[in-house]
Each structure stands twice: as C-alpha cells, then as structure tokens.
C-alpha cells in the first residue's frame, strides 16, 4: 500500500454549491481506484490563513496529501490518481495504449479549459450577479456559448459511451464540470448529454462520493440555514 491519503474539503457549502465543490471529483477518482482516504474539513476562516495559503495559494479546496506529496488543483489531483497502476478488481482510470492515454488526458484539459471556463462564467452571473445590469446584458451571449460547447461535446457520444471509449478520469472531470449547470436545463436539453451524465452518475463510486460530501454538509449546517 502507498502512503496515507488525506483530502481537504469544505465543512459546509451553501445549498446552490452542494454536490459541486471540486473535492467531489477527487473523492470519485479515489473511490473508482479503490484507494482509502481521510477527509480533513476546512471552514471559511481556516482557508484565509497564511498557513492554508502556503498549501493552496488561492485559498480553495481540495488540497491532497499523500506522504510527502502535496497537491492542489482538482485536475492535477485526479490525473495523479489516474496515473497509479489499477488495484486488483478495480478499473484503470486511463487507457494503457499511449495515444489513447494522451487523448484521455486531453479531455481532462478540455473539460476544464474548453467547457468549465464558459460554464463558470455563466454560473458566476447566476449566483453572484443575477440582477446586475452587466450580468443581465452579458448572460444571453454566455448561454449561447455554453450551448454551443455542449452541442460539440454531445457530438462526441454519437459513436462512443465515454470520452476515451471506456469510462476514464476524463469523464470524472467532465461530469464535475457539467454538474455546475444543474440549476439550468442546458444539459438535459441535449438528450445525448443528459444520457451521458446519467450513465456516469449511476456509477456506485460516484454515488458513494456524493453521499460522503453531502453528509458533511448536513452535519455542519449553520443554524441560519
């Protein structure tokens, strides 16, 4: 067995962000890989401390430690987990064939850089600036951009069930990104994409990781909620 794995997650998130905080992707990858991990919960004040910023310069979660290795950035962490040799009885999270492996990794970057960047811009308006004049003026263009990117993504599933053929870490990152749109019908408006999401989210490892994240939030709900 390798060094013990510890993951930093939020102890609570407002309802609109629950089930979307990025430690979910890391929990999911660890569950798929069959790796045990310990959760370290962090509150808002703790993430502003110099000590925390030393580990995560942008004050976010997740932070991942494995012995001497300490990582941040959910994309980098899930890639790190996926590169480990698969444990007996567990499915590899990256294809073995080098070109297929490079393509699967490219889809992690696509999820984050060709989709998430536009999806986050749209969600930022919906969550933080829905009544601001700039948000109202900007939103239709962004929604159009997101729709266009989602259509292109959906076209990938015309001939395959998952981004890299078989289920892989690329699907974990893509689903993590798509989950931010749950307050809209943008994903379900495209049947092939809705079906892809359902297929991935039906996996027991996803269900376990979502339940684990939600359980902490339920336990730490502030009195005002």
């Amino acid at each position, binding site marked *: 067995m390798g060094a013990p794995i510890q993951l930093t997650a939020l102890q609570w998130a407002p309802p609109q962000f629950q089930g979307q905080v990025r430690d979910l992707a890391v929990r999911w990858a660890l569950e798929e890989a069959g790796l045990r991990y310990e959760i370290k919960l962090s509150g808002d004040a703790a993430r502003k401390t110099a000590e925390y*910023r030393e580990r995560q310069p942008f004050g976010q979660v997740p932070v991942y430690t494995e012995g001497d290795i300490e990582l941040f*950035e959910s994309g*980098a962490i899930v890639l790190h987990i996926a590169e480990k040799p698969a444990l007996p009885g567990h499915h590899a999270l990256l294809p073995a064939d080098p070109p297929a492996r490079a393509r699967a*990794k*490219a889809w992690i*970057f696509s999820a984050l850089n*060709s989709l998430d960047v536009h999806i986050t811009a749209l969600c930022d308006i919906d969550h933080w600036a829905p009544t601001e004049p700039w948000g109202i003026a900007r939103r239709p263009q962004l929604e159009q951009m997101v729709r266009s990117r989602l259509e292109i993504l959906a076209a990938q599933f015309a001939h395959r069930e998952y981004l890299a053929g078989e289920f892989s870490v690329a699907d974990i990152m893509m689903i993590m990104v798509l989950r931010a749109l749950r307050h809209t019908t943008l994903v379900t408006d495209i049947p092939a994409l809705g079906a892809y999401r359902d297929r991935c989210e039906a996996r027991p490892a996803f269900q376990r990781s979502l339940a684990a994240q939600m359980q902490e939030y339920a336990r730490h709900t502030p009195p005002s909620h």
Partner: protein
Amino acid sequence: MANIRVTGFKWVPPFAQGLVRDLRVRWALEEAGLPYEEKLLGHGEQNSAEHRAIQPFGQVPVFEEGDLTLFESGAIVLHIAEKSPLLLPPEPGARARVITWMFAALNSVEPHLLALAALDSFFAKEEWARLRKPSALAMAQSRLTGLAAGLGDRPYLEGPFSAADVLMTTVLRFIKHTTLVTEMPTLAAYQARCEARPAFKRALEAQLAPFAKYAPVAA
C-alpha cells in the same frame, strides 16, 4: 521519430499576436529540442469540417505526431513535457507538483486574466463590459496576488524551470496590455526571467513571422 506538426494561424489581429496558444506548444518544443513543422490556417479555416474533425471546438493549436492527434494546449504541453526531463522532472513528487502548477496556470489564473483581456478587446465598446470591469479587475488582481505569494522568492514555480513556467508565462502575457504584472515586482521579474530564455524568443518569432507575411492589405 515521427514528424511533429503544430497548427497555428496565418494571421490574427494585432491584439492577439504573440498570445495565440500555439506559442506555448512551440516554446515547449523548443525547450525539449524537438523539431516541428507548422500548419497554418487561413481566415475561417478553423471552422472547416476537416479542422473540426481534429479540433472539435474549432481552435488552435492542434498537435500531430504519427498516429497521435491532440488538442488542448495544456494537454499538448504535458505530452511534450513527458518526453523532456527539463520540462517535467522524473521524480514522482516533483512531477506531480509541476503538473499541479500547470493546472493552476490554466484553471486558477488564465480564466480570470482572459476575462479581463476580453473586456478590453472583444467587448471594449459594450456598456456591460464597462460595468463588469471593476469586479473582473479585482478578481484578476486577487489571483495574481495568490500567484505571487505561491511563487514567493523562488525563481520558478517548482524547482528549476519547467512546463509549469511555460504555461504560467504565456498566461501572464494575456494582460500585457495592462500594468497589472509590472506593478508586482515578483511577477514582473518572473515573467522577464522566463521570457529571456532563447527557446521562448525562438517560439515567439516563429509565431509572429507568418503574421507579417500574411498581413491583410489595408482597405
């Protein structure tokens, strides 16, 4: 060894020159000492069915090497770095940390700098862009502050120069029309240190050369 081919543009408007993302791929290839040829797309060709078949989002760069076709500049730089210990150290801990900073460049810094740059270029005449600017500027500054603290007094993001610095430097270039980086001595020195590398200069010249050659004749 398979021939490497990188797709870029024949010409882009002046504000985008020196910023197109094939720059980071050319730079990584120059650092790794890997020769490559370029394939240049003319106006509108990025939307052709032929190009969309290898880059579904209609963008550049595309990287071709034998049977392998890759898109996403971050994935391409990672792929090149995996061939070069100079860009990605072999020791597992250091390697994972460099990859962390690669993702940080592309996901924690780039989106906010690009959002600001877009307000100043594509959307400069829009009223909503004027209203959006203060909050976008504050976000970009907050991420630059995090980056400067993360860099601390080290010359590079993680150990010696690496693929993380290739990506972060090209990300910082997106706001070269502002004084945001030059106002922060740590970051200004970092960017200057990285851009002083001969491989960067060769990559930049290689991107810019076609723009001069294919510049549209003013109407």
